[in-house]
């Protein structure tokens, strides 16, 4: 009898784990674009190899990207971005880890668009900050798409802008994130 009970527990735990597994959505096709406008120059770059995981059983979200994968129109700008501002050899990745606020009040199995906020830790240039980001989650039959637009202040992440190029580089950068997750 005791053995039966144990087997049962193992089976239940196993099923539960398989269930959890099914509710994790993964993507490698996320896009992150940033844009800033300064008196002399607009700066724009896109990274279309962004990894992300969303767990639909707990509301946990993870996003991660390589700084070197940001592509600029001007190769020199890209070099300076990596060398002088982001120091991408020292800090190769930028990440976000967070949880959807009031997760239990949403049902992402139904099609529709959900405006949510995600609170978590955003790490850029090795500096971690606590942020709440507005995210719109769109669910249709095959794809769950998460989109977010937010402002990043370079000073918050210890990204130095020397006086010499102050007119070329904005202090606030608009970041747009879009991640499509294919549903299983």
């Amino acid at each position, binding site marked *: 009898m005791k*053995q039966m009970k*144990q*087997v049962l527990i*193992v*089976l239940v*735990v*196993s*099923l539960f*784990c*398989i269930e959890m*597994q099914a509710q*994790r959505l*993964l993507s*490698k096709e996320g896009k992150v674009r940033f844009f800033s406008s300064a008196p002399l120059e607009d700066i724009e770059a896109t990274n279309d*190899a962004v*990894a*992300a*995981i969303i767990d639909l059983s707990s509301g946990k979200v*993870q996003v*991660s990207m*390589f700084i*070197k*994968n940001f592509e600029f*129109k*001007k*190769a*020199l700008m890209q*070099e*300076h971005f*990596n*060398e*002088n501002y982001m120091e991408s*050899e*020292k800090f190769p*990745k930028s*990440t976000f880890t967070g949880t959807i606020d009031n997760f239990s009040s949403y049902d992402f199995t139904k099609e529709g668009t959900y405006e949510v906020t995600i609170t978590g830790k955003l790490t850029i240039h090795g500096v971690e900050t606590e942020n709440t980001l507005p995210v719109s989650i769109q669910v249709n039959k095959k794809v769950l798409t998460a989109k977010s637009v937010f402002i990043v202040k370079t000073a918050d992440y210890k990204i*130095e802008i*020397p006086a*010499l*190029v102050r007119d*070329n580089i904005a202090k606030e950068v608009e970041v747009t994130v879009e991640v499509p997750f294919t549903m299983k």
Partner: protein
Amino acid sequence: MRKYYVLLIVLFNHNISQGQDIDDLMNEIAGKDLYETTATFKSTHVVTGHSVELMKKGQLDFRIAHRFGQLNSGYYNLWGLDEAHIHFGFDLGVMDWLMVGIGRGTYEKTYDGLLKFKLTKQREGENSFPISISILNTMSANTLHLYKPGKEYLTDRLSYAHQVLVARKFNDRFSFQLAPSYVHKNIVPTELDPNDTFSVGLGGRFKLSKRVSVNMEYYYVVPPVNDFRSLETYNPLSIGFDIETGGHVFQVFLSNSVAMIEKGFITETTGNWLDGGVHIGFNVSRVFSLY
């Protein structure tokens, strides 16, 4: 019995171990160029000579190099500032691995052209490789009025310089370059002057801050077999600063050579550092994005 439970758990839950985490995804994203070393040198030149760097595809570098007169020419000549030699050049990155350039210099009224190829790049990670290698081929034509008896051919005015540029970025601050070089002149002033000159260039840069570096360049010129040349020459040595400001790189330095192309500064440097035969130099490089 407990063993079987473990086995059961493993069997049922092998999915869990297969479940990828964010780092697995990141490893799949990481391409090979992610680990390529960038910016071994700030520009395509160390000081006067070339560095291992090429312009990227579609980028045009407009470079104006200035060399003033000799410091030891004294107050009368404002320590050389009364006199200036220039060289300007356009270097275009045709492909990421090919740079083509043309230029013109005051020294011997010379036109020059260059081809620079990137052979391999220093890489970290799986297929790591410790050094970057580029090849430089240049040709130059002196267009001075020569008063030479007899018929003159264009080929008489041509010189060639070839270099293998081998560099390593040791860390964020320090990069070092070795450049075995070969210079050939079709015609030399006298029979005693060598047509072929071999040399080895040493170049280094040390970053003082994110935008300022100290650069040094020295060419050891293998002495020719006979030393009765028409010109007394010295090995070129240049020391200076690179100051980067967004799209411009400024270089301010001291050098004992006047010529700003390989054929000139490797084989025809007449200034002697030891008695103040050095020149203040000033280069500006501006990069444009063409395509």
